[in-house]
């Protein structure tokens, strides 16, 4: 099996426009190992969808090269199309006149499944995504969540080696989005080597699902790494909130321990005379120092009532990298109207 599922080298994509050329991708370099759940995180207009369209052979790069499992996106389009599939959020594909079962069967034909095999595959996937009750229902009558489950089933019909998910939970309610995420995770885990490229602007989704994430903005990759690695970029110390039944010697005693940067009473704790516990914020050089703190507390006869680690979010990472929040960052990617004169 190839080591890399995706390899992108210096890819630029420039859209023509009446005013000025719009640079959607500005020299992207990216490697995604086979079997990885990789995320592209960025605001609207960052270039995520443009990159997906290049990798799914729907769009040509203006310059640079890209390959999927070693197949060039420009020269080996048919081969790539045989082993990949894609699902987009808010997708309205297919024909409302068909039932869920019929619609999915129609798509099996485009991947060359024999008639009976196609029906069997469809029934398996309908069961797997939890649409058994809706299998004979017309597509036009499905709810948004049901529709997206059907779209996911469509994306799995050819048993792809790589699945491109473009904002797959867009517009779904919390329960439907969670259900879809669980399906995606289970599908990938079932066979080693299955690779997923997810684009999303939901930070929590990327954090939950992805082994590695690239933060993209204005057509460039600003940072790449596991969610933990990215978060460590903005926080090089470990912060814990600890609740004790009592503390002999006060916060200063803890602050003198090796590896402890600071130990302070949590805001409001000192003034609360009725409180039966002590709540403190501990800033440690790294997580390893926590063991020494816990040992010291035991020696002092303190009992730990609660311990919670405070972590930065991916949004903090984005703000650190871009200098603005996600909501402020979004501008639309150039679309067909922008390319009209190309």
């Amino acid at each position, binding site marked *: 099996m190839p080591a890399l599922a995706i390899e992108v080298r210096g890819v630029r994509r420039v859209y023509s426009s009446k005013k000025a050329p719009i640079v959607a991708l500005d020299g992207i370099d990216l490697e995604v190992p*086979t079997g990885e759940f990789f995320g592209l995180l960025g605001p609207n207009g960052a270039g995520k*969808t443009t990159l997906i369209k290049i990798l799914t*052979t729907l769009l040509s790069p203006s310059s640079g090269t890209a390959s999927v499992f070693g197949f060039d996106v420009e020269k080996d389009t048919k081969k790539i199309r045989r082993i990949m599939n894609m699902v987009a959020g808010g997708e309205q*594909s297919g024909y409302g006149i068909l039932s869920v079962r019929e619609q999915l069967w129609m*798509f099996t034909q*485009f991947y*060359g499944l024999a008639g009976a095999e196609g029906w069997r595959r469809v029934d398996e996937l309908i069961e797997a995504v939890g649409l058994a009750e809706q299998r004979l229902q017309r597509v036009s009558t499905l709810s948004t969540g049901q529709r997206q489950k059907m779209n996911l089933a469509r994306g799995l019909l050819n048993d792809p080696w790589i699945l491109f998910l473009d904002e797959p939970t867009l517009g779904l309610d919390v329960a439907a989005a969670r259900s879809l995420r669980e399906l995606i995770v*289970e599908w990938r885990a079932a066979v080693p080597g*299955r690779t997923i490229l997810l684009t999303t602007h939901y930070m929590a989704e990327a954090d939950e699902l992805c082994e590695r994430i690239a933060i993209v903005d204005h057509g460039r990759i600003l940072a790449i790494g596991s969610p933990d690695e990215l978060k460590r970029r903005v926080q090089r110390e470990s912060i814990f909130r600890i609740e004790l039944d009592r503390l002999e010697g006060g916060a200063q005693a803890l602050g003198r321990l090796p590896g402890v940067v600071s130990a302070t009473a949590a805001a409001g704790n000192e003034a609360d005379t009725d409180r039966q516990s002590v709540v403190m914020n501990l800033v440690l050089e790294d997580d390893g120092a926590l063991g020494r703190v816990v040992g010291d507390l035991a020696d002092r006869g303190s009992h730990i009532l609660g311990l919670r680690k405070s972590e930065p979010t991916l949004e903090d990472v984005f703000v650190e990298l871009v200098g603005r929040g996600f909501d402020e960052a979004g501008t639309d990617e150039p679309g067909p109207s922008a390319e009209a004169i190309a």
Partner: protein
Amino acid sequence: MAATMDLVGRAGAGPREAAAWSRRQVLMTNLRSIRGRAYPRVIGLVREPSWVLFEILLPFLGTSAFVFVYRALDAPPQYVGFVVLGGALTAFWLNVIWMMANQLYWEKSQGNLELYFAAPMHFMAILFGMAVGGMVMSSTRAATVLLIAGTVYGVAFSVDQWALLLGVFVLTLGALYGLGMVLASLFLVWGREAWHMGQMLTEPVYFVSGLNFPVARLGFVGALSVAVIPLATGLDAMRQLAFSDAAFPIGTPPPVVEVAILGAMTVISILGARWMLATMERRARRDGRLSVRWQ
């Protein structure tokens, strides 16, 4: 659930092996894609009964108007047959202009187009599937109109060469739907103007195809100039073959020549559609026009 997901997994083969298809796999995928794309059109026959009103009753009324005009003028009885035959074939032209030529534009709006292009079959298979589905659908409608109108108005067919008539019919459909494939690619490039273009072409083609009169009435040059429209040529040949007992010249040129014209049209239009699709895909990939949804 994981077990269910695993059912569709291919143990053993890696992605590169899975991408290496044999010629037979490619062929079968294309054939199955034709079947898959034809399916919604065929199933639509039973799912949307409104077509009985819009595509049988209303065309029947239109045909009836010409029948009464010809009868009032004491035209030869074959003229009633001409109109009935023309009325039946209207279904095919409507199908080509609205459900072939415009279809890719609508597919793009729905998001189907990019899924078709992202799938491994040749895109011509999708066009063939649309054509086959359309032919089945329109043949049902045409046969119904022919049966009802032929019975109601007592049309007497006089056919000497059944095989040639069948051949002309098949070739007419081939040329007509080949033209539909070419138009589909063109209309996709033209985008939203496609709908207006479809509207603009409907009535002129009705007229020059001679749906309600024999094109021989346009004179030799006139008939020859409209021969580039498959429906005109096919209908003219079918009329000559279906009413061979007429005591007056019906069409021009003879059916055998029109068979050759239709055959050439079929081949040229299918090859043209293939070339246009390849060009369209290349341009669309370059310009980013395969999908409307771009974010």
